[in-house]
C-alpha cells in the first residue's frame, strides 16, 4: 500500500501513532513533550478516531504525578492508555511506574528525553530523565530519528501488549522532538497489522471488573514480597525476543528492518562507538564518511536498552572489534561510569567470564556527550575515534566541552565536516515576532512534500521572550539526512533583521560562494554602505552572492504589518532555485491558502499580495570590491562591567557559550545577580520620551513598566551641575519633598522593549494636542546615544531616602529603586510589574522562592538575571527549586530564618552582659513594622557586630554568622497559576495552613503561559486554551475563597490596571501580616491574544465586569471587631462581553462555534453575578460582637 510522505517533527510523529492505538490519554504539559499531548488533544477535538473507530479521550491532569495516577487507573480498568512526558515530569511518574511494571501492565510512555534539573534547570535534551527510570521495570526503546519515532511508537505498543512489560519509548528532546524531517507515514493498515486485537482483549480481560472481581495492589510482607518480585522474570526474559519479532514483522510491512542493536560500519571495524538517541545518526553519517575513506570504524546503535540483552548486544559487534567507546548522554556523579557504559562493560565481562566472548576482550571506555542538547558533531565523533586509536585512550571522558578542571575532555578538530556537497544548507536569522520559523517550517513542507528531496529543519530559539532571535537550520538534498547537529557550513544565509549584523557574526558560517539574503530598511543603492565592516569583509572575502529586500516596506504596503514571513519565504524560493520560480510561487500560494483559508478571504489575499510584491522588490546587489564601512560590531558588554560578566556572561550573550571552559563555571549553580544591566539589548523600535511640561508626576508609568526601564527620582538640583545637556528635570510637585528640589523621569532606552504600557496608562494629556501625553513613543535609534548618557547620569543621582517616602502610595513606592530590572519577559508582560513592585518595597530584605514557569525563566534564565542590588549591595536572594514544590521550598526559607533568628536571640541573651543589656533588649524587642523600624534595627545589628568584634565569647562567631537574621526578612513565594492552582496546590494549601509568616504571590495569567497556553484550573469559562480547544466549559477555581476559608490567612486579589493603589496597599499589608499571606494578581498575558499595550485597560475591564473581584481579607481586622473582608471592587458595571470579547481567547469561540460562545457568555455572566453576591454578602457581615 502506498504510504504518504509527510514532513513533521518528532513529537507529531509519536503523537500521530500513539493517538491511533490508544483509548485514553492522560497528560500534563512539560517541555519538550507538551506538543505530543497537544497534538492528541487536537486530533480528538477534530474527531479523529483510533484504529478501533473511537475518538480517544484526552485529559489534562494537575501534574505528572496526577497523570501517571490516572494512567495507572485507566490501565487497571482495562483501557489502552498512554502519556507523554519528560524530565522532572517523568521523575514524578516513578512511583506509578514501579506499580504499573510490577503489575505487568501493557502501556507505552512516550518521552522526549530532557535534562533533569541539577545545578540549574534545562529544558534541553539528554538522557538523564530516562536513565532515572531504568530501574522501574519499564522496557526502554530508543528512537534516533523522526522516522524511527513513528516506527518505534508502533513497535513498542505491539511489543508491550505481547510482553506485558510496559515501555518507555524515548527520543532526544528538541533535537528529535522538534526536528522536522520528511518521513514515510504509517497507515492505519500498518497499525492494524501490528496490533493484535486478541492481545488488546486480553489486556481488557485483566482489568478490574466488578462482574469478575479480584483485588490487585495488596500489601505483602517479608514472607512473600521477595518471591512475588521474582515472578516477573520470565516476562522480562522474553521481552527482547518479542521486540525483535515485532521489528521483523514491521520490516515485512514497511521494508525498514530494525534490530535490538543495529550495527553500521566497516565489516572489519576495529573501533566502535556505542550509543543511543539522535547522536547515533551523526555517528552513522561520520562512520559512512570515514569508511568510504578506508577507516575501519563502526557504530552500534542501542535500540532496546531495557531489558538489556547481553548476548544480542555483544553479537552486534564485528569480530574484529578492538576498542569501544560507549557514550552516555547523561551524568551520574560518583558512579563507576555512566549507565550504558556500565551495561557494556558488564556484558563483555559476563560473556568473557562464561567464555562466550566471540573475540578478544576489547578496550572499553566510557564518555559523556551532549548534555542539555550540547552539540554533537562529526568533528567530535572523529575526535572519539581518534582517541580509540590511542594505546591508552582516556576513560570517563567528555566530548564537546573544554574541561580544564578535571581534564576529562577530548580534543576535536572543528574543521572536520562530513556534510555532502549535494545538500543545500540554509541558515535563517529571524526575530521571534517576524514569523521566520513558521515560514521555514512551511518551506520544508513544500520542499519535502512537493519534491523528491529529503528535508530537515531544526530551530534554535533565544532564552528571552522579548526581541528574541531565532536561527533556522534547513537542509535539503537527494540523500537521506542524518545530520543531527547544527549547520556550521551554510551555502545560504538569510538575515531577516538588519540589526543582527551589528550584534552577531551572521556570515561566520557562510561558505565561499554562498548566497546571502538580507532584509534591510534601505534602498538597493544605500544598503552596501550601511552594512557593518565585518559583514562587508565577509561578503567580499567569501565572494558571496548578495540579495536584499526591504521586507518591512513590502509588508506595510500589502497590509501585512510587521509580518515578513511570506515575503522572506518567497525571496528564498526565488533565489535558491530549489524549485522553478513559477512553480515555487504557486506552491507558496497553495500553502497560504491552506494555512489561512479558514480565516477568511481577506487574509489569503493579503498574503498573495505580499508574494506578488516581493519579486519586484528583491534585488541582487553588485558587490563592490572594497570595504566602505566604518561601522564596527558592538562588544557584548561594556568595559565597565564586572570581570565575571566580561569573562563569562559576555561569552553567553555573544552566542559563544559553548566555548566557556569548565573552570569558568560556578561549581554549584550560584551566579551573580544584577547582570541584566550589562546586556543592552536595544530591542525596542520605539521608546517612551518624557514631556516634563505635561507630566503630573503620578509615577504610574514607573509602576506599570514591566521591564523597570522608566524610573523617577527627586533630588537636590545642585546635582544638575554635571548633567548632560539634554538631561530633563522639572520642579517636584507635592509637599512631601524639600522646597526647590526637582523631579526627573528617565527612560533606559536600550533596555526598553517598546511595549507602550506606560503610554497607555499615563493619565496626563497635552492640553494643546490631546493625542499626546506626558510620555510618547518615538523611534529609538536617534535617541540611543543621547539617552544612554542621560541614563548613566540618572543612575548616579542618589535614591531618595526610603524612610522618608510614603511607600504605601503608588507615587511614593515608585521612587524606590526596582531590584528587578530589564528581564527577558515578553514586551508588555502583566506579571513583572508585580514582581518589580515587591522588589521595590521589600527587595533589600527579600528572599524569593520561585516556581518554575515564566517567572523563573525571565527571572533566572541565563545569560543574565534581572534580580538586582541596591546601593548597599543588598537585594533579593532568589532561587528556583521545582515547579511542584515551590510553596514548601519557600516555607523552608521561613523555617531557617525563624530558627536563625531564634538562635541569634538566644545567644544574645547569653551574651547580654557582654554586649550590653540595653542594646540586647532593643534588638530583641524591636518592632520592625515599617522602613524606619527596620532601618533602626539594621543600625543596632551593625552596632552589635562591632561590639562582638571586641568581645571574647565561645559563641561569638556563631552569633555573627546569624546576626543578620535579627533584621526582619521577607519571604516571598512566587509563581504562576499552573503552580498555585494545579501542580503546587497541595503544598500551597499546606503552607497556608502552617500559620508561618510567608508571602505568596500568585501571578495569575489564567493559563500555563510558559509552556504555551495550556488550560489550568485558573482558566475561566469560555476561554480557549490547549486542552480546552473549544473553550473551557467549567468555571475558574476561586483560589481566594479557598484561602480565606482558613480565616487566619491574609488574602488579597489585585489587578494593578484597575487599582494600583489597592495593589500597593495589599502588598504592604500582606508583608506586614505576621502569618501566611497570599496575593492573587491578575496578570494579562500574551496567551490572552490581544495587543499587550492594552493590558492595563483589560485589567480594568476584568474588574468592572465583575470577572475579577478585588478584595483584601485581613485577619488583623478581626481583632478590631471589624469585618476582615474589604471589597475593593464595585458592583459589576459593564457586561462581561465587553471584557471577554476584547481577547482572542474568548472571541475565537464565536468564530468557531457561535452557539457555544453564546452559552459560555451567558454562563459566565451568571457566575459573575453569583460571585459578586457571595462576596458582597460576606463583606457586609457584622463582626463587631466577635471582635471583643
Amino acid at each position, binding site marked *: 500500500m502506498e504510504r504518504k510522505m509527510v514532513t513533521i517533527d518528532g513529537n507529531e510523529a509519536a503523537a500521530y501513532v500513539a493517538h491511533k492505538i490508544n483509548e485514553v490519554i492522560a497528560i500534563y504539559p512539560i*517541555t*519538550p513533550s*507538551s*506538543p505530543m499531548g*497537544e497534538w492528541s*488533544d*487536537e486530533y480528538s*477535538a*477534530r474527531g479523529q478516531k483510533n484504529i478501533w473507530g473511537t475518538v480517544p479521550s484526552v485529559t489534562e491532569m494537575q501534574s505528572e504525578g496526577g497523570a501517571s495516577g490516572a494512567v495507572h487507573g485507566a490501565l487497571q480498568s482495562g483501557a489502552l492508555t498512554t502519556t507523554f512526558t519528560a524530565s522532572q515530569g517523568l521523575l514524578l511518574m516513578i512511583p506509578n511506574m514501579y506499580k504499573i511494571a510490577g503489575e505487568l501492565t501493557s502501556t507505552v510512555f512516550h518521552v522526549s528525553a530532557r535534562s533533569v534539573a541539577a545545578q540549574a534547570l534545562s*529544558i534541553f535534551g539528554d538522557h538523564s530523565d530516562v536513565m532515572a527510570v531504568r530501574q522501574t521495570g519499564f522496557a526502554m526503546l530508543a528512537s534516533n530519528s523522526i522516522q524511527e519515532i513513528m516506527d518505534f511508537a508502533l513497535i513498542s505498543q505491539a511489543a508491550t501488549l505481547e510482553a506485558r512489560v510496559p515501555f518507555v519509548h524515548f527520543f532526544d528532546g*528538541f533535537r528529535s522532538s*522538534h526536528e522536522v524531517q520528511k518521513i514515510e507515514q504509517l497507515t492505519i493498515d500498518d497499525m492494524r497489522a501490528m496490533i493484535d486485537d486478541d492481545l488488546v482483549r486480553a489486556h481488557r480481560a485483566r482489568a478490574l471488573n466488578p462482574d469478575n472481581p479480584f483485588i490487585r495492589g495488596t500489601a505483602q510482607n517479608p514472607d512473600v514480597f521477595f518471591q512475588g518480585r521474582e515472578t516477573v522474570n520470565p516476562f522480562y526474559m522474553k521481552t527482547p525476543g518479542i521486540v525483535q519479532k515485532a521489528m521483523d514483522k514491521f520490516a515485512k510491512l514497511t521494508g525498514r528492518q530494525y534490530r535490538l542493536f543495529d550495527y553500521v560500519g566497516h565489516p572489519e571495524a576495529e573501533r566502535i562507538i556505542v550509543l543511543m538517541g539522535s547522536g547515533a545518526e551523526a555517528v552513522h553519517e561520520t562512520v559512512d564518511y570515514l569508511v568510504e575513506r578506508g577507516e575501519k570504524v563502526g557504530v552500534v546503535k542501542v535500540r532496546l536498552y531495557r531489558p538489556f540483552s547481553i548476548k544480542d548486544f555483544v553479537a552486534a559487534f564485528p569480530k574484529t572489534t578492538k576498542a569501544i567507546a560507549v557514550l552516555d548522554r547523561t551524568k551520574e556523579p560518583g558512579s563507576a561510569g555512566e549507565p550504558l557504559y556500565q551495561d557494556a562493560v558488564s556484558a563483555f565481562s559476563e560473556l568473557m567470564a562464561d567464555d562466550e566472548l566471540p573475540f578478544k576482550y576489547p578496550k572499553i571506555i566510557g564518555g559523556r556527550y551532549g548534555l542539555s542538547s550540547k552539540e554533537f558533531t562529526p568533528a567530535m565523533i572523529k575526535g572519539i575515534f581518534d582517541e580509540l586509536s590511542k594505546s591508552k585512550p582516556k576513560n570517563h571522558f567528555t566530548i564537546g566541552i573544554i574541561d580544564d578542571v578535571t581534564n576529562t575532555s577530548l580534543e576535536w578538530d572543528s574543521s572536520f565536516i562530513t556534510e555532502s556537497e549535494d545538500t543545500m544548507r540554509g541558515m535563517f536569522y529571524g*526575530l*521571534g*515576532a517576524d*514569523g*521566520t*520559523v*513558521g515560514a521555514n*517550517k512551511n518551506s520544508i513542507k513544500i520542499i519535502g512534500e512537493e519534491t523528491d528531496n529529503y528535508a530537515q529543519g531544526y*530551530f534554535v*530559539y*533565544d532564552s528571552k*521572550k522579548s526581541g*528574541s532571535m*531565532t536561527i533556522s537550520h534547513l537542509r535539503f538534498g537527494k540523500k537521506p539526512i542524518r545530520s543531527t547537529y547544527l549547520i556550521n557550513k551554510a551555502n545560504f544565509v538569510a538575515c531577516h533583521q538588519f540589526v543582527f549584523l551589528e550584534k552577531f557574526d551572521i556570515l561566520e558560517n557562510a561558505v565561499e560562494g554562498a548566497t546571502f539574503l538580507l532584509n534591510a530598511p534601505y534602498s538597493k543603492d544605500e544598503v552596501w554602505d550601511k552594512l557593518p565592516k565585518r559583514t562587508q569583509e565577509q561578503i567580499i572575502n567569501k565572494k558571496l552572492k548578495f540579495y536584499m529586500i526591504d521586507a518591512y516596506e513590502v509588508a506595510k504596503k500589502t497590509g501585512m*504589518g510587521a509580518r515578513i514571513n511570506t515575503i522572506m519565504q518567497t525571496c528564498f524560493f526565488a533565489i535558491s532555485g530549489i524549485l522553478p520560480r513559477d512553480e515555487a510561487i504557486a506552491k507558496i500560494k497553495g500553502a497560504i491558502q491552506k494555512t*489561512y483559508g*479558514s*480565516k*477568511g*478571504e*481577506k*487574509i489569503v489575499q493579503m498574503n498573495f499580495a505580499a508574494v506578488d510584491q516581493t519579486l519586484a522588490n528583491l534585488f541582487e546587489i553588485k558587490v563592490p570590491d572594497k570595504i566602505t564601512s566604518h561601522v564596527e560590531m558592538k562588544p557584548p558588554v561594556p568595559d565597565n562591567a564586572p570581570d565575571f560578566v566580561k569573562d563569562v556572561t559576555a561569552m553567553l550573550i555573544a552566542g559563544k557559550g559553548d566555548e566557556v571552559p569548565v573552570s569558568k563555571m560556578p561549581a554549584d549553580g550560584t551566579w551573580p545577580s544584577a547582570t541584566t544591566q550589562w546586556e543592552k539589548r536595544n530591542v525596542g523600535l520605539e521608546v517612551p520620551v518624557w514631556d516634563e511640561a505635561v507630566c503630573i508626576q503620578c509615577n504610574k508609568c514607573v509602576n506599570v513598566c514591566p521591564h523597570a526601564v522608566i524610573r523617577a527620582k527627586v533630588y537636590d538640583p545642585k546635582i544638575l551641575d554635571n548633567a548632560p545637556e539634554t538631561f530633563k528635570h522639572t520642579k517636584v510637585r507635592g509637599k512631601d519633598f524639600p522646597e526647590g528640589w526637582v523631579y526627573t523621569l528617565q527612560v533606559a532606552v536600550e533596555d526598553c522593549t517598546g511595549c507602550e504600557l506606560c503610554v497607555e496608562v499615563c493619565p496626563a*494629556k497635552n492640553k494643546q494636542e*490631546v493625542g499626546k501625553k506626558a510620555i510618547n513613543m518615538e523611534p529609538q535609534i536617534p535617541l540611543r546615544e543621547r539617552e544612554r548618557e542621560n541614563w548613566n547620569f540618572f543612575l548616579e543621582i542618589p535614591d531618595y531616602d526610603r524612610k522618608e517616602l510614603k511607600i504605601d502610595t503608588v507615587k511614593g513606592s515608585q521612587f524606590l529603586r526596582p531590584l528587578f530590572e530589564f528581564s527577558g519577559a*515578553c514586551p508588555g508582560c502583566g506579571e513583572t510589574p508585580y514582581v518589580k513592585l515587591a522588589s521595590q518595597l521589600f527587595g533589600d530584605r527579600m528572599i524569593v522562592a520561585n516556581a518554575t514557569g515564566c517567572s523563573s*525563566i525571565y527571572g533566572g534564565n541565563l545569560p543574565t538575571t534581572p534580580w538586582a542590588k541596591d546601593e548597599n549591595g543588598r537585594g533579593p536572594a532568589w532561587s528556583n527549586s521545582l515547579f511542584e514544590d515551590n510553596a514548601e521550598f519557600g516555607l523552608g526559607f521561613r523555617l531557617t530564618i525563624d530558627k536563625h533568628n531564634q538562635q541569634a536571640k538566644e545567644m544574645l541573651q547569653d551574651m547580654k552582659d557582654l554586649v550590653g543589656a540595653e542594646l540586647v533588649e532593643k534588638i530583641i524587642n524591636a518592632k520592625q513594622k515599617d522602613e524606619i523600624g527596620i532601618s533602626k534595627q539594621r543600625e543596632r545589628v551593625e552596632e552589635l557586630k562591632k561590639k562582638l568584634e571586641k568581645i571574647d565569647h565561645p559563641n561569638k562567631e556563631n552569633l555573627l554568622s546569624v546576626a543578620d537574621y535579627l533584621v526582619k526578612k521577607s519571604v516571598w513565594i512566587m509563581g504562576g497559576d499552573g503552580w498555585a492552582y494545579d501542580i503546587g496546590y497541595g503544598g500551597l494549601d499546606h503552607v497556608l495552613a502552617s500559620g508561618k509568616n510567608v508571602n505568596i504571590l500568585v501571578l495569575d495569567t489564567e493559563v500555563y*503561559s*510558559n*509552556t*504555551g*497556553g495550556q488550560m489550568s484550573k485558573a482558566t475561566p469559562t469560555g476561554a*480557549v*486554551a*490547549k486542552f480546552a*480547544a473549544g473553550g473551557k466549559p467549567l468555571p475558574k477555581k476561586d483560589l481566594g475563597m479557598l484561602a480565606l476559608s482558613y480565616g487566619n490567612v491574609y488574602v488579597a486579589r489585585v489587578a494593578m490596571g484597575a487599582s494600583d493603589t489597592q495593589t500597593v496597599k495589599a502588598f504592604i499589608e500582606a508583608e506586614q501580616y505576621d502569618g501566611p499571606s497570599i496575593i492573587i494578581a491578575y496578570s494579562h498575558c*500574551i*496567551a490572552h*491574544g*490581544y495587543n499587550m499595550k492594552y493590558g492595563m485597560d483589560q485589567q480594568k475591564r476584568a474588574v468592572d465586569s465583575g470577572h475579577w473581584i478585588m478584595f483584601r481579607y485581613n485577619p488583623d481586622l478581626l481583632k478590631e471587631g471589624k469585618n476582615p473582608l474589604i471589597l475593593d471592587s464595585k458592583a459589576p458595571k459593564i457586561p462581561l462581553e465587553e471584557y471577554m470579547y476584547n481577547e*482572542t*481567547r474568548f*472571541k*475565537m469561540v*464565536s*468564530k*468557531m*462555534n*457561535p452557539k457555544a460562545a453564546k452559552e459560555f457568555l451567558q454562563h459566565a455572566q451568571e457566575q459573575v453575578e453569583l460571585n459578586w453576591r457571595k462576596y458582597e454578602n460576606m463583606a457586609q457581615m457584622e463582626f463587631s460582637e466577635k471582635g471583643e
Partner: protein
Amino acid sequence: MDLSTTYMGFKLKNPLIPSASPLSANIDKAKELEDAGAAAIVMYSLFEEQINQENEALDTFLSQGSESFAEAMAYFPQPESFANAEAEEYLEQVSKLKEALDIPVIGSLNGVSAGGWMKYAKKIQEAGADGLELNIFFIPTDPDMTATTVEEMYIENLKTVKQHVSIPVSVKMGPFFSSMANMAKQLDDAGANALVLFNRLYQPDIDLEELEVVTALEPSTSYELRLPLRWLAILYGRLQADLAVSRGIHSAQDVLKAIMAGADVTQMTSVLLQKGPAYLKTILQDLINWMEEHEYESIEQMKGSMSYKSIAQPAAYTRANYMKTLQSIR
C-alpha cells in the same frame, strides 16, 4: 380598514417594520414581533469591515509570540477551521428567521469592498432572504474627495449588488448629500427598489474629564422624524423606488405622519428596544383607532397626502430659515 401597503415588491399587511436591530438576532424576539403584527423584518447588519478586522485580529493574535520561544511554539490551539469566519452565523440566522417567520425577511449589509458587497449580498440571498437592505454610509474626511466621487461610490455599490442578486434591494442612506433629491434619483435610476431614510450614525461627543471622544448611539426620539419627513414629502411621487422611513418612529402618530408625507412603510427600533417587541401591537392598534376615528379607509388613501406636491403651501417643506415675510404679498 385596509392597512396594506407595498414595499420592495412585497404586499405587506401593514406599514410597520422593525428595522435593523439586535432583536432579529433572537428568533423568539423575532417571533414576538411577528405575532405583534410586524409586516416584515429587517435583520441586524452584517458588517464586512468587522468581519475582516476580526479575522485579521484572529490571525495576528493566534500567532502572536509563536515560534519565538522554545517552550511555547504557540499560545493557542490552532483550529483547523472556523465555522463562523465569514458571517456563517449571520447567514444561518437568515435561514432560521425565514423558517420561523411567515413575514418577509430583509437582510442588511454594510460592505467595504466591491468584492465584499457582491459576495455577502449573494450569500444573504442564498441563505433565503426575501430582500436586501444596503446600509451604506461613508464619512468622507479627505478634502480632495469630491461629492461626485462619493456619489459614484454609492451608485457603484448598488449596481454591483443588483447585478448579482435577484431579490429586491433597498438602500438605507444618509441625509448628507448636497442634492439629496438628485442622489435619490440616481439611486432610483441605478435600480434601487426602495430608499430608506435615513441611517442613524454614531455622533461623537467629548468627555471633558477624561478628554476623550466618546461615541454612542442614543435611542431616537419622535423629533428625529422631522428630517426624513421633509425628504419623504419632497421625494414622494418622483421616484420608481418605494420609500421607507427609519428614524423617529415611536408611535402611531409618527407612522401616520410618515405615511402622509409619502412613506410606503415605517421602520422602527428604539421604541421596540425600550418597550419590548410586543409594543408594536400597541402602535398598530393606535394606528387603527386613529384611522377609524378620523374615518380613513386605507393606508393607500393617506399615502403622500401631505407630500410636497399634495399640500397647498409646499414651501413649508423647503423653508430652511425663519424669514420676516409679509403675508399680504401673497
